[in-house]
């Protein structure tokens, strides 16, 4: 019975511990897997012709010739959609037409004045012509403004009646007849009474089309780079297409009830008009319009990005993160190891040492934002001016703040490692006549190196990922790649934070945020792997292999 009970206990222990390991592995896969998958989307994706154009414009990558033919082909397909949109827009939004009519009238007046001065026509003739022009303009404006088709048609007819007027031939006023003719065609397809509702919906459609296809060819480029190109990624393009085809609205379900999201086909809003044709056209032709291709954008890891991270990569962020992390280690490791050595070798177990140890342990639990504020107050505002450096965010201050942050962890790990060095090593060295310091440097430290490296690994992971300590000391969201250590830098951790809270750009370019986080984890893993490999080497050497 006893034996059986013991066997049962053993088996239960094995099972439970095995399960917990499995659980941990599972959690790791569940957490990191999707992150890497989404993050990989920043590097491997379907890039559209807009992406290739952007790459050529910004970095000169790709072939100009093939890019041009591709753009031409895409524009050829896009032209139909633009034409359709413009025809419909002309009937709905007549402010442009009204402006045009007024401009024509002003030109007409100038023309008349010149003719009188030349003596081609008399002042009286000019006056009558001017009044005709004025009448035509007013009729046209009325036609543009009215929502009653019959009235509009009557006004247009009234304008067109003057088309035969010999006096107007060859003058600017002939443009009135062109406008009237165009508008006559337009109102035959558009229900003018619904013009008001159309205007808003049309604006939305036009915005989406602009986001999807970029600025129209021939039009001046917008100042902001984010508006200079259409959808550069195929998955983003498809999202936009979905937004174009489906209209989402929050509809009240009755008083006191919560709002409900209702999806309706946008074509329904434009039912009966020419614009309904736009939606199937976009759906069918999105591929030739954007020409997606499988893209491996490895330059993501070296490219700078446009302001706001709309396009480009995380090169400066990677450099900044590496600089901060490694520099903080340069500060923290000598200090931490020396402190640990002092605590173990040079002091007994006095009350003083116990107090110091308690302080260190407490420091390890202090929230990182506190270190950030300390760094701001001490390094940035106090120490830097004292040293003659400019008072402001700098890599140096950030690295020192991170060093202070990881010091407790490092000291604890080093202390344990130094304590674990067999006494016999120390005795052997001392018996050979070596001093304490000599023994520490030549015997204790090499033997403790693997343990100390474990502490360094933990510290690197912590330092690379921390945002709060560098928030007030080193990190900026925008800015050039730093040239000296006294300048601020962009970092991966702060970058992904800023994407989420700054202008909420993360919603528009989620791949950027995922890409940053993935890169951050990858960097930490690579640094850790390097440290682990060094530790293996040292351990093998210590074991005598």
């Amino acid at each position, binding site marked *: 019975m006893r034996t059986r009970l013991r066997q049962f206990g053993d088996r239960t222990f094995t099972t439970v511990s095995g399960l917990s390991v499995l659980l941990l592995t599972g959690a790791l896969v569940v957490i990191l897997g999707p992150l890497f998958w989404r993050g990989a989307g920043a590097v491997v994706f379907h890039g559209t012709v807009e992406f290739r154009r952007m790459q050529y414009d910004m970095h000169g990558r790709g072939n100009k010739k093939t890019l041009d033919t591709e753009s031409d082909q895409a524009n050829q397909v896009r032209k139909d959609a633009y034409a359709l949109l413009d025809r419909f827009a002309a009937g709905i939004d007549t402010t442009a037409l009204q402006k045009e009519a007024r401009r024509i009238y002003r030109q007409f007046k100038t023309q008349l004045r010149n003719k009188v001065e030349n003596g081609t026509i008399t002042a009286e003739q000019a006056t009558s012509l001017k009044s005709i022009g004025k009448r035509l303009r007013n009729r046209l404006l009325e036609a543009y403004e009215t929502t009653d088709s019959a009235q509009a048609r009557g006004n247009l007819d009234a304008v067109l009646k003057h088309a035969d007027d010999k006096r107007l031939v060859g003058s600017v006023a002939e443009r009135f007849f062109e406008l009237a003719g165009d508008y006559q065609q337009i109102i035959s397809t558009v229900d003018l009474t619904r013009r008001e509702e159309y205007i808003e919906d049309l604006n939305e459609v036009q915005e989406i089309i602009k986001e999807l296809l970029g600025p129209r060819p021939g039009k001046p480029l917008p100042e902001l780079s984010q508006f200079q190109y259409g959808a550069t990624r195929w998955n983003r393009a498809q999202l936009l297409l979905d937004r174009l085809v489906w209209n989402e609205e929050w509809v009240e379900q009755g008083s006191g009830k919560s709002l409900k999201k209702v999806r309706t086909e946008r074509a329904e809003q434009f039912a009966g008009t020419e614009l309904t044709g736009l939606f199937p056209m976009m759906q069918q032709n999105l591929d030739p319009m954007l020409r997606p291709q499988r893209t491996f954008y490895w330059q993501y890891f070296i490219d700078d990005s446009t302001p706001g991270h709309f396009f480009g990569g995380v090169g400066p962020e990677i450099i900044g993160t590496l600089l901060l992390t490694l520099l903080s280690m340069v500060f923290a490791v000598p200090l931490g190891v020396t402190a640990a050595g002092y605590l173990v070798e040079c002091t007994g177990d006095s009350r003083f040492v116990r107090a110091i140890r308690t302080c260190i342990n407490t420091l390890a639990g202090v929230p990182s934002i506190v270190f950030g504020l300390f760094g701001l107050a001490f390094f940035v505002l106090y120490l830097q001016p004292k040293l003659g450096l400019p008072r402001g965010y700098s890599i140096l201050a950030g690295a020192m703040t991170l060093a202070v942050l990881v010091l407790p962890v490092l000291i604890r790990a080093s202390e344990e490692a130094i304590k674990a060095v067999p006494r*016999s090593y120390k005795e052997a060295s001392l018996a050979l006549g070596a001093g304490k310091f000599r023994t520490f440097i030549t015997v204790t430290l090499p033997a403790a190196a693997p343990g100390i490296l474990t502490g360094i690994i933990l510290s690197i992971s912590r330092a690379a990922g921390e945002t709060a300590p560098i928030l007030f000391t080193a990190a900026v969201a925008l800015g050039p790649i730093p040239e000296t250590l006294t300048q601020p830098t962009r970092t991966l951790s702060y970058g992904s934070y800023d994407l989420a809270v700054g202008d909420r750009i993360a919603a528009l370019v989620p791949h950027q945020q995922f890409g940053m986080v993935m890169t951050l984890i990858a960097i930490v893993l690579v640094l850790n792997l390097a440290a682990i490999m060094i530790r293996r080497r040292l351990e093998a050497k210590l074991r005598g292999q």
Partner: protein
Amino acid sequence: MELEQTPVVDVTEMKQLHEFHSALPEQADRTEIPSGGPVIVSDGFCLYYGPKAGVRDITMDIYPRAVTAIIGPSGCGKSTFLRSINRMNDLIPHTRATGRLAVNGQDVYDKRVNLVNLRQQVGMVFQRPNPFPKSIYDNIAYGPRLQGIRKRSRLDEIVEKCLHDAALWEEAKDELKKSALALSGGQQQRLCIARALATGPKVLLMDEPCSALDPVATGRIEELIRKLKTDYTIVIVTHNMQQAARVSDQTAFFCLGDLIEYGMTRDVFTNPQNKQTEDYITGRFG
């Protein structure tokens, strides 16, 4: 004395005694104190751990070019006394020494004593082989390097000589760059002896050097000790009385921090003057 009065003699006791006697001819036949003055002079030496005495009132002279064995039950202060000679007890906090303990006429516990010089004059070999996790070469060169010898050719010379002296040269000459930890236990202990020899000591302290080794390795170390005593003064602490009988010229018996008996090994083992000594070497206690 009491043995004679006992009517029945224990057979195992007889055997043990016989073993000691048969072991004796193997050792160098020394029946008197070696010529020359003593190297280590202990005169009323006491060492306290806090309030507790580790060794009390030790008065003995240790002579050059001889092996002096210190035997005694566990906790009797053998190691404490041994470690006092090169002041390794300093590592333990709150130790205090009184009396006089001198090596080559220099008081070891004098405030002005140069610990580096002292420890290089008095080499030590520990219970467990404790080579540094470095190469064989670096292990031996550690001491000379401390003395400031940097010249490669000089170091090579020292390493070769010490390995020869420690009877390890033949086994290790092709593997000087290999880690010392790759050696076997016996080889490691001989390496530790070679390392101790490299600083050019006069005295070699051995703290149970064979207790972690198998009989074959032990035999080789004992052989080595016998060879080394022609040049060095050796003090060895051992639990193994046969070993003491085999390798030592003189034997000191410690018990509970006191020196009970000290004399020529042959005399101590065949004709102990003290009841405690006799009980101990015949296996009645300890």
